[in-house]
């Protein structure tokens, strides 16, 4: 699948709210075509490249700003969530001030949901970072191909150091979330898990879950072999539960509640 199309699909299906924050791949591609076809002496290669670089940098600034803002939000929410859990345990838990199994379960359920969604959002941010990075790489590759210049390699080196690409902190928060989940969820029995999975979740619906499913599948798609495979390309995605995940994509029947 063409990257431009794939990118659009990714955005629309996973994070339409973030549409503006993604790479303007189409526009950049047009520019590249323009540059390569209209190599007039007045506009010169250097100027065109400078303009291209300028636009790319604007994109990068955009990514950085958005990413760091989200990251900041996540940091805050993460802490609040942790505190929330403690509060629930301390208030309605067995050793708490107002121990109440029912309340505890209720509140815990909410907390769990929050955590899982939070986890998903963070993962989607990492996905955002990745998608944009990939897009940048591709547009640079196109640029080099069409203009015969050597912009990609040095430029991408700089991109690697950009805040939006350095997703370590978010990843760390994600892992912490996963640990918290393990503590907060009741212990599951093996067979139940299998049964549950077999029951084919027909629902993706809206929400974080659906988004992550789509993101995952899209990633698999984009990494399928391509015609322009080179040594700078990523290998195909090895996704063990691919079938199961595919099944998540089925849309939910209209709720009759």
């Amino acid at each position, binding site marked *: 699948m063409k990257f431009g199309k794939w990118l659009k699909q990714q955005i629309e299906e996973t994070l339409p709210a973030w549409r503006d924050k993604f790479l303007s791949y189409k526009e950049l591609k047009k520019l590249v075509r323009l540059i390569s076809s209209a190599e007039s002496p007045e506009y010169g290669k250097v100027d065109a490249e*400078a303009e291209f670089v300028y636009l790319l940098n604007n994109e990068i600034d*955009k990514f950085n700003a958005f990413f760091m803002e989200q990251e900041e939000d996540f940091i805050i929410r993460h802490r609040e969530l942790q505190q929330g859990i403690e509060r629930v345990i301390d208030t309605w838990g067995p050793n708490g001030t107002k121990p109440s199994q029912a309340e505890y379960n209720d509140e815990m359920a909410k907390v769990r949901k929050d955590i899982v969604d939070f986890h998903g959002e963070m993962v989607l941010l990492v996905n955002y970072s990745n998608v944009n990075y990939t897009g940048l790489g591709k547009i640079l590759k196109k640029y080099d191909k069409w203009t015969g210049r*050597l912009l990609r390699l040095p430029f991408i080196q700089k991109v690697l150091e*950009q805040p939006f690409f350095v997703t370590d902190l978010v990843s760390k928060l*994600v892992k912490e979330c996963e640990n918290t989940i393990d503590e907060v969820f009741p212990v599951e029995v093996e067979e139940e898990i299998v049964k549950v999975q077999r029951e084919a979740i027909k629902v993706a619906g*809206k929400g974080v879950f659906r988004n992550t499913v789509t993101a995952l599948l899209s990633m698999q798609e984009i990494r399928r072999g391509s015609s322009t*495979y080179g040594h700078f390309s990523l290998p195909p995605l090895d996704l063990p539960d691919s079938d199961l995940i595919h099944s998540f994509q089925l849309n939910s029947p209209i709720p009759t509640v």
Partner: protein
Amino acid sequence: MKARPALSIQISGASNMGVSEGLSSSLPAISTPLEDTYRKLPGTQQISAKRELMGRPLVRATYSSSNSGVVGHIFSSSSGFSSDLHYSSSSPHEKHSRNAPFISQAPTNGAASPLLQSSNRMMPQSMMSSQYYKENSGSWCTDPGFPDFPISTPVQSCQVESTNCSGIMTSEDLCKSNEWQEWAEQLITDDDALASDWNELLVVDNVMDMEPKVAKPCTSTTLSEQKPQVHQRPPSLSVASRSVVNSSSSANNAPAKPRMRWTPELHEAFVEAVNQLGGSERATPKGVLKIMKVEGLTIYHVKSHLQKYRTARYRPESSEGSLERKSTSTEDLSSLDLKAGMGITEALRLQMEVQKRLHEQLEIQRNLQLRIEEQGRYLQMMFEKQKSGLDKLKASPSSSENPQELPAKGEPEASQTNHVNSGTDTANVKSTLERSSEEMGGEQEAPKTTETGVSKSSSPPSKRPRIE
């Protein structure tokens, strides 16, 4: 051509006195370095730039507007600047040639920096800004690695050495006057505490290296958007502050809202400070800033962070009765309910699994990407070494070890082989990429020599060992 210190002097002058006299007294002092620095620029730019510098602050009547004028000045230049930095990467030669004058002028600018430092001391604000400045000007003058700047530094010039190009300001100023107004208004409406922090901000943004503009079209394009400078504290400061200050903003925000990268530790300190002040509602940005005592943290950062914090707290607190949560996640809940036969917990678990999987894959992908680029860089380096070696050997046939085995479907960084025999360049570097290429499963193709304008000869990895 680096009027950076000059600019700062002017700014601090403006903000200190708040009156034109301060400006006029400082201006003559800087006119000489300005002259020097502007010498290199095209004549008209030069003159108009100077006029801009001198003319604007004097025109402003009020304290705030003069500040904002100057600030806007700086910010516009800084926005132009960030693009310069970027340009620099594409035209290393130009850069290098201009770097030399810059460095040679460093001593003269170094002379200017005491001026700065003294004016910094006069500033109402804290050590923070002057310290910034001193550190920065110090390292700025003495940075040995400067010539390497275009290649090695990150786009966002997260280093002290980032500078601003004075030349850009001229044309940008004209267009920025509207934004100055907005900025002025915004600044005026903020609490007084902010006023004193302007200096900080200014200094923060001023601490940048000066990059010469590369091409004219750039000027016109930089006018369309303002991208404040990105900068990072010098190593000593950043260690102390535990945070990296990056500045970037969308075109909508006020110019140069420096963006801070928060960390959990920093946030923890923030929360403590807030609690000390009696909670998120009662705490003020200034108070928090004071308590936190973090270098590089400006009141802007604290303000926006506090806002976010309040929002985050308000929602959960108001929804103790689970109102909020229900309303915001009805869709999710209903979708969960439909997971027939499955308790919510199981559904969540499943969701978690998928998310985990996605995250895993993303991490793997990212690591791969890093490694690919690393290899590419290494390859490039080897290639250049080889090339220089070959140039010396000239007509030596020995270097064409494996002319047939060069998979040529590679990155055009190899197009430097224009000068070199296509079959020879990557012979030495194939082994380095052997491992990664095996993992990549890259295709192998016959070496292509020159294509239209592009020489794609062979730097990509080969699966075969170099020495068979």
